[in-house]
């Protein structure tokens, strides 16, 4: 079956008890057992529930995996994967990653005796050079956040495996519609399901997906022991969101490409970072690694200082000023003051997060409406200047 058909049907088998075409939302925290010492499929909701299992089945199918696990948030999923490591182990992470992952690596895992090296994952030689004999996990994102760098997932998997490490890919930006890292050799796929999977800015959740029973069992052991599981209502909303995932991602990607082209011709814009543009250094790779579109996240640099950029981000009428991404509503933010404010100023410079950078999450509104909005926001700033 095709992707969209699976998104609608896999994991959503009709309810055998009532025939309901949408599975019920199971809110039970505990399940009655057949006998003392005899266990049914579900026992206590931290260990699993029919509602979570349905979502996990759908997401595993969409990511071409065998198993998926649903967490309370993207960060708890990331943490769940990183808790596979022991004191003394080492992680290699790409440098263009989410600020929250950066914080987890540098301020929490270090306390557990796990060390980390950041390396530019777009530069495969530099990436490989960061591995040592303690490296057990490599963590990358593609497209990266917020510079939209494209990392060669298959090559990274090959490097990680050569060093006896697992490769985990945060696939939040690309979504399984456009990239399926497990098919490219990755071992773990992570999602902030809060973003495109849910897609409506109304549920927090995270997912891990694997194609290996043993790896699943290890992750499940950690999840069941630590308890950061997804709640029933959030699970329902995310499962509902998945049904329109492909429609949303393809439409939002089309609008993003349109805006990228428009922005790159605007006199006040010095640079547009979008893998769908031929000028983007990762364009060819993205064309091979992404399935027919380039995603709906983009950044651009305004020729302006910190305050001017801030004012542009604050003057849009349709784009709303907020972190997060991947929803039907278009969002705008200034990474230097918002999503990547937790980096120190020096680190921001090193990683290319300049003050004039603006990040867009392109939503489902009509692209003409969005373009009109960006133009007026930039023009309003020009009038002030």
């Amino acid at each position, binding site marked *: 079956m095709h992707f969209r058909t699976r998104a609608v049907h896999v994991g959503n088998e009709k309810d055998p008890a009532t025939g309901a075409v949408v599975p019920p939302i199971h809110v039970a925290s505990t399940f009655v057992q057949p006998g003392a010492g005899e266990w049914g499929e579900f026992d206590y909701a931290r260990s699993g529930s029919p509602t979570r299992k349905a979502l996990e089945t759908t997401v595993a199918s969409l990511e071409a995996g065998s198993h998926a696990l649903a967490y309370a948030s993207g960060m708890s999923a990331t943490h769940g994967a990183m808790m596979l490591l022991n004191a003394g182990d080492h992680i290699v992470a790409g440098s263009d990653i989410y600020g929250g992952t950066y914080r987890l690596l540098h301020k929490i895992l270090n306390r557990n005796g796990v060390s980390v090296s950041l390396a530019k994952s777009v530069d495969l030689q530099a990436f490989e050079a960061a591995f040592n004999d303690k490296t057990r996990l490599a963590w990358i994102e593609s497209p990266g956040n917020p510079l939209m760098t494209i990392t060669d997932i298959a090559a990274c998997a090959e490097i990680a495996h050569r060093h006896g490490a697992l490769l985990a890919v945060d696939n939040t930006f690309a979504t399984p519609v456009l990239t399926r890292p497990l098919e490219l050799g990755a071992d773990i796929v992570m999602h902030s399901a809060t973003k495109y999977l849910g897609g409506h800015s109304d549920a927090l959740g995270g997912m891990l997906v694997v194609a290996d029973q043993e790896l699943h069992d290890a992750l499940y052991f950690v999840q069941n022991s630590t308890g950061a599981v997804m709640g029933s209502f959030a699970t329902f909303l995310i499962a509902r969101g998945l049904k329109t995932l492909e429609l949303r991602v393809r439409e939002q990607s089309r609008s993003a490409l349109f805006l990228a082209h428009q922005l790159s011709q605007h006199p006040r814009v010095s640079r547009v970072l979008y893998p769908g543009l031929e000028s983007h250094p990762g364009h060819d790779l993205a064309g091979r690694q992404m399935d027919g579109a380039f995603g709906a996240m983009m950044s651009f640099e305004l020729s302006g200082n910190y305050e001017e950029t801030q004012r542009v981000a604050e003057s849009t009428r349709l784009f709303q000023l907020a972190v997060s991404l991947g929803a039907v509503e278009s969002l705008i933010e200034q990474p230097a003051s918002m999503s990547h404010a937790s980096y120190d100023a020096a680190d921001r410079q090193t990683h290319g997060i300049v003050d004039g950078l603006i990040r867009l999450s392109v939503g*489902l509104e009509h692209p003409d409406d969005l373009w009109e909005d960006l133009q007026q926001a930039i023009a309003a700033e020009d009038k002030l200047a």
Partner: protein
Amino acid sequence: MSFPSDRSGPRSEQRLPGPSTLAVHAGEDRHKLGHAITDPVICASTFTFKDSQAVIDYIEQDQERGEYGRYGTPGEMVVERKLAAMEGGEEAILYSSGMAAIVGLFMSKLNSGDEVVFFDECYHRSREFCAKHLSRFGVVTRQVKACDYEAMEAAITPQTRLVVSESPTNPHLSVVDLERFADLGRRHGVDTLIDATLATPYNARPIEFGIDFVLHSATKYMGGHNDLLAGVIVGQSEKLADVRTLRGIMGAVNSAHNLYLLQRGLKTFELRMLRHNANGQAVAEFLENHPAVERVYYPGLASHPYHEVARRTMRGYGGLVTFLIKNADWRVTADVVDRSRIARIAPSLGGVETLIEQPLVMSYYQCTVEERKRFGIPDNMIRLACGIENEEDIIADLEQALAGVQRT
């Protein structure tokens, strides 16, 4: 750009926002409670006033705010504004189901001695309500053949208050000439109601043709996920004041959670409709060329009797396709339904999941043979409500389900 909720905002452009922009933003305040990007689910059944003067101001100034849940809630007002904007109407009133909406309108507009004229192809429960319940209150229902405008004019009397049709009709998918229908009502001083559930405001906006009231079972394409029930009436505020008052008394309103699911479903409205339209067209064309199929009813086919009207009044033709199996009795037809693997056997339509049903078995089982003949429901009729799955998968499923017919 400006939305109904954004009255203070700048009105820079005359161009109307696109359908998706409306679906995502229309009716919503840009700055919401708690700075949240989405509207909160306000479950409160009642709403507080800061003092007695506030109550008096609310009544005297007819303020738009919550009082008691049955009269409207802040969450409901958002969805009503959004639906009104999408439909190009002044005001929308939500009900707990499509039937509650049509009943709400009839009960507001029709008094004992009044008459209502229907085009006869319609949802059987609408017909049943008129025949069995409105008649008890002395309201006379007349039915004329669908799309026979002369017959409809001939049926109008000085007591007629309302003329009603679905467009497209269910399950025959006849398409009403909305301009002609509106004109007919205007000339006779009679209000016009179109149940546009099968069209949706993406495919047709009857108010733009001069229709007075548009009705939707929002359970279908508007909600879009087969997980809520709701109904809505859209029209001019002046004509809806009595309808809203009666709803407040009768109380067929939605729960807060239901309204949230509807609002959320609307965000992907245009995307879903594009897929439903594409799937409906592809499936209709496939079926029309299939040797086991006797006839296909789909307004997007050149062979459809109302294709020309549909082209004039509609942007796309929706996901519903009705067809007849060639030389088949009810059992052979039922076997086709039973062989489907993607399409699920269920009433309803307009959700992401493809549904299939045989009208004889599903909705008309209690009818006599004569009644079914009168309603145009042969034993070999199947109604397929295309979801948003990939069209290749839906067609492959139909192909295998129909393969059995050729062998028999």
